[in-house]
């Protein structure tokens, strides 16, 4: 808390300072005053990881290249970022550019504050340099309300010592993964861990087997979350849970958390994001990582990450400047710099850049997974829907309810939400 307070105070001081500086400078530079555009940039880059420092350096470079544009960065916590846009939707005090969670795009779009980015003449050119899957997180009804800023996805981490000890090969298919989880489990080992039961966790398995959560146009869950594929996949997880080959604190509050469990050698397999790499290095785990083993429909993991967004409330000049800034930030140079402080690039060239790979050794594995990774449904009340799914899937896995019954209930509740929001 204290840290956030300090960051908050610093952000405030920074804002004040930049206000003073910008007001002074606009007084001084009389010649360029009508050409100089100031854009406000809200973000939640992690100061602790050194990302804010890199951002400041990048802004200086950008301003040096574009003498008529000034970027005013404002740090806000995740929650504050969301709340300020929600309240700003009413007062009009919105930023010109925002870099925030992919889940914000549908939420903000439903507030009618986001600029339609795909209407820009060179949006296509800019987007072509970027991985398609992460960029799909900004797409609603074939219109892009943003562009990917950085991404992450989940890959399969495995404990080498455990698998070798049990004489198990690294799984190549989903079926082999379930098999491996089962066989590596013994009195001291639980094959797999899933910290939660939302689509972030079970989605990749369902997608890889050819199922889905909602219909392609997000109009219903009936026949998807309770379809044969989803039922089969959740049943598999329930079977694993029953024989203690799968665990996780949201299914069993007595289970060891994933990070502690990896460190103590309790868990052998987990589909997880880039953060697992450093955590495992810190814990001294001898681990390997591969993209999610393929199911009958291929290997489809889940997308995380952030997008850049622009706002309707900005002036035309600000919009133009904002777009220049976004193009700069999604360019190779900025993306590589951000990769060095832990942000996984979306820029195709940056993904294969040796410096970026040096900073994130598993980058090639993630790049591979990103090619086919899928975003969770981009729809306004998604977080409510995912909560429903998490509850019902947990009931199914722990055996409180039959799998089909639990997922049928989930479909009914989600369809109710969909009909309410229409």
């Amino acid at each position, binding site marked *: 808390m204290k840290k956030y307070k300090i960051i908050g105070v610093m952000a405030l001081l920074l804002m004040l300072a930049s206000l003073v500086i910008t007001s002074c400078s606009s007084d001084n530079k009389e010649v360029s005053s009508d050409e100089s555009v100031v854009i406000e940039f809200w973000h939640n880059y992690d100061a602790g990881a050194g990302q804010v420092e890199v951002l400041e350096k990048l802004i200086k470079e950008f301003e040096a290249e574009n003498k008529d544009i000034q970027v005013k960065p404002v740090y806000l916590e995740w929650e504050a970022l969301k709340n300020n846009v929600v*309240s700003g939707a009413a007062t009009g005090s919105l930023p010109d550019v925002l870099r925030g969670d992919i889940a914000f795009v549908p939420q903000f779009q439903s507030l009618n504050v986001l600029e339609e980015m795909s209407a820009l003449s060179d949006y296509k050119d800019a987007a072509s340099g970027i991985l398609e899957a992460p960029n799909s997180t900004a797409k609603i009804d074939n219109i892009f309300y943003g562009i990917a800023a950085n991404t992450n996805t989940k890959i399969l981490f495995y404990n080498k010592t455990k698998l070798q000890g049990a004489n198990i090969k690294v799984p190549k298919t989903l079926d082999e993964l379930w098999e491996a989880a089962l066989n590596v489990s013994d009195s001291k080992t639980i094959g797999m861990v899933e910290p939660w039961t939302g689509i972030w966790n079970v989605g990749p398995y369902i997608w890889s087997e050819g199922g889905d959560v909602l219909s392609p146009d997000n109009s219903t869950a009936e026949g998807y979350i309770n379809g044969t594929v989803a039922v089969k996949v959740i049943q598999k997880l329930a079977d694993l849970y029953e024989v203690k080959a799968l665990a996780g604190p949201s299914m069993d509050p*007595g289970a060891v958390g994933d990070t502690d469990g990896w460190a103590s050698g*309790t868990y052998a397999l987990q589909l997880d994001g880039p953060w697992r790499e450093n955590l495992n290095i810190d814990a001294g785990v001898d681990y390997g990582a591969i993209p999610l083993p393929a199911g009958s429909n291929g290997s489809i993991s889940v997308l995380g990450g952030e997008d850049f967004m622009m706002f309707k409330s900005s002036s035309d000049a600000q919009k133009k400047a904002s777009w220049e800034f976004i193009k700069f930030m999604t360019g190779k140079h900025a993306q590589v710099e951000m990769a060095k402080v832990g942000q996984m690039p979306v820029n195709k060239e940056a993904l294969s850049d040796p410096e970026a790979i040096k900073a994130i050794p598993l980058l090639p594995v993630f790049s591979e997974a990103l090619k086919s990774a899928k975003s969770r449904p981009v729809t306004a009340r998604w977080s*409510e829907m995912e*909560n429903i799914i998490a509850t019902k899937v947990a009931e199914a896995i722990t055996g*409180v309810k039959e799998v089909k019954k639990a997922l049928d209930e989930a479909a009914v509740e989600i369809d109710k939400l969909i009909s309410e929001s229409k």
Partner: protein
Amino acid sequence: MISIVKKKSTRKTDWRVYILLIPGLLFVATFTFYPIVKMLVMSFFNWRIGYQQVSDFVGLANYKDVLSDQIARRALMNTVAYAVVTVPLQMIFGLFVAVLINGIKKFSISFRLAYYLPVITSWVVVALLFRYIFNNQGLLNYFLTDVLKVVNEPIGWLSTRWSAIFVAMLLGIWKGIGWNMVIFLAALQSVPKEYYEAASLDGLNNRQQFFYITLPSIRGTILFALVMLSIGAFNTYTPIAVLTGGNPAHQTEVVLTWMYFQTFNAMGKMGYSAALSIIIAAVIMLVTVLMFITLSRKKED
């Protein structure tokens, strides 16, 4: 003496009293009464956060939502179970310890201190300790499987609904004994010694003395403890939040943890949570009134 009393009663209430009262009243009005009224209002709306967001009046829909919500009902059941088990047991153990301490001459302060320590330790800290004890790989399972070897596999104390709530109850009782002890000790010391002297002359043994003299004499304190603890039990939050977080699948949710989830984890269902709070407040009020009526009636008998 008499004249003073007379003077006091004839004196008109000074207007300055009101001025002195204003800051306190304002404070309570702003931070207690206003929020309560506001919450009552919110419970009739589909309340949205944010400035220009329009909140629609939905009448009793939120109340209907709460009452038809399986998880809310389960949470209420869990809360009632928690109250029914922890309140009497805390009181019985607290009274028992108080009677023991009241009977000894030496070390009474050290015992009082020892029993009071759990009360002043932080809920979060002890709840975390309980989690480490009752985890699948926790201390208790370690003793049962590896040291005593009475079971082959670790027992999932926190894994299912009732066993997890049982652990929370255990925590609640353990932590509550000290408070009850202090309250009952004070009550016991106010019972006149003459009663006991007369009783032993009449040939009552210790047990009879306890039931015929001690208990009736501290009836007021019992009622007080009962009401306070019942309200406290309905407001339990930390043990569940830390031990299970309401998992698995909201099975172990109590009303407050569920309210928190609906307000802050799900997408801000403010109206729903307001309705739930009003319902809980009504339940607590009803329970309290019933307790007062039944216990004071006994007194008349």
